[in-house]
């Protein structure tokens, strides 16, 4: 009798423990050593492993698009640095083509501005743009809320994580932000060398490349993010069909014409094609583009005009070797960011 009571008690304890453990699934977000404080408002959306898992499932679920064919991951694939390879510009439902290259997603917690033109100023709100954009998911928010409400899986998940039976857009975008804010990439060879970790050292070629990078590139692509909230002109002429004027679209200021966000170079090896409209396919050709640039162009960013990138063929190879040290394979293949559905 005593034995059966003990077994019953042990079973009860196991149930409590498993419930408690479920409640405390950790979010993968972490603060790398020596990095600045994140810009993201964690108080407004505290890290929560359960919400992260919901956001992860939503990120990979085409339920967000009008005809249920396109998910966030359609244009942001993990193993290509959450960017979109092959297609110069993103594509949406029914084969619709957007006018910008889908940028890689990493270290978004430290960003204040989003999109190539910086038109979005809040990571939570960012998700509304691709969901409702006619060339992307083309989904009405009210229809999406209805669809999620009617889904037994998602209605249960939102009830469990947000305690709501009335799913609103802010629940959805906060769940998605739990996932996207957790995409921290800070474990490349470059990071390990900087941290003097695992006896990692640069090769001679990488070291030479880093010197060149520091001299010619780092004024815009500043470490540790190698890109961010600045808008610059890299001299690319206006695309005659896309007619994308970049930052000027947002500010209405002619001085912002053809300025685009400085993209991060982290995982750049895998986030081809390059530039805001994906017009350059290979990384070596991006480097060559800068070496052939007309630096007398008054519309170029001042950093480029002051310090033209003049590199020999060998120096271009050295720079390329350094850029490849920014690849973070633990991030690209992190199990916690892979495709998942709600359990």
């Amino acid at each position: 009798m005593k034995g059966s009571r003990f077994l019953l008690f042990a079973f009860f304890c196991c149930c409590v423990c498993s419930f408690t453990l479920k409640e405390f699934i950790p979010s993968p977000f972490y603060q790398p050593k020596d990095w600045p404080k994140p810009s993201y408002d964690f108080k407004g959306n505290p890290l929560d492993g359960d919400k992260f898992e919901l956001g992860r499932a939503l990120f990979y679920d085409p339920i967000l698009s009008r005809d249920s064919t396109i998910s966030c991951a359609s244009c942001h694939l993990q193993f290509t640095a959450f960017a979109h390879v092959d297609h110069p510009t993103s594509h949406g439902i029914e084969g619709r083509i957007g006018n910008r290259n889908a940028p890689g997603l990493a270290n978004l917690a430290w960003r204040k501005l989003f999109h190539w033109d910086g038109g979005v100023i809040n990571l939570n709100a960012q998700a509304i743009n691709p969901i409702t954009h006619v060339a992307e998911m083309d989904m009405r928010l009210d229809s999406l809320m209805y669809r999620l409400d009617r889904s037994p899986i998602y209605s249960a998940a939102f009830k469990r994580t947000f305690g709501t039976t009335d799913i609103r857009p802010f629940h959805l975008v906060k769940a998605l932000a739990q996932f996207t804010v957790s995409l921290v990439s800070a474990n490349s060879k470059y990071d390990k060398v900087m941290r003097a970790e695992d006896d990692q050292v640069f090769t001679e070629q990488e070291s030479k490349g880093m010197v060149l990078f520091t001299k010619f590139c780092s004024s815009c692509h500043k470490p540790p993010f190698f890109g961010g909230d600045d808008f610059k002109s890299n001299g690319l002429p206006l695309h005659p069909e896309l007619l994308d004027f970049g930052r000027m679209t947002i500010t209405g200021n002619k001085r912002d014409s053809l300025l685009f966000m400085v993209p991060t170079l982290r995982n750049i090896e895998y986030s081809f094609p390059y530039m805001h409209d994906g017009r350059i396919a290979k990384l070596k050709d991006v480097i060559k583009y800068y070496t052939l640039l007309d630096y007398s162009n008054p519309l170029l960013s001042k950093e480029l005009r002051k310090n033209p990138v003049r590199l020999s063929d060998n120096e271009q190879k050295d720079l390329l070797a350094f850029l490849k040290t920014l690849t973070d394979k633990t991030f690209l293949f992190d199990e916690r960011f892979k495709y998942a559905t709600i359990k």
Partner: protein
Amino acid sequence: MKVAFHLFLVSFLFSLACYGQLRIIPSWDNKALELEQVYLTENKDSISFSTLKMYFSDFRFREKLSGGITEIDTLIFYDLADSSTHVFFKNLEISNYDDVSFTLGLDSSKNVSGELENAYDPLLGMYWAWNTGYVNLKLAGKSSLVLTKTHDFEFHLGGYRFPYASAQQVQVDLLDSYIQFELSLLFPDVISLKKTHHLMLPGKEAFLILQGLAACFN
């Protein structure tokens, strides 16, 4: 006697219903505006409205006796199609105040707050996804002044960036528990539908139209 009693009862109930309420009443020629109703402009052009949505914020009520200011820093969403949005401040005794000033729209801090709940809910149709922020006022309808096949006009008026921060300050006397918003004053001086019938961008035009709209409150 019975009639007098009924009149008294009705007026008493009406005063109870109005207690502490502030209404915004859009109008055309001093009559309450109705959606899809055809009106005539001063020049006898037809016009009808299918959408009128707007934001109000930062209310400042000036008290009659003390002259003190009661500030209510809140964001209020108004939709002519939804009567539940027409009455505000149910717990405020409006008759205690001489006048009120408020913002038609949202200032920059509210635009960038990152809030997406309640009056900020994107489901209300006022959120600008492509350029983070909110439309201050949406106005749409049909008019013979619009020289296209459909005669449609549509204005999404917003923007909070310098130099065209378009939210407008409004001050009105509180002679009653409602504020009139007379739209016939807009045409043709503030909005020339022959020239502009669609506007979806922040900028000088949106700023000037909102300035004209602010002058329609009385």
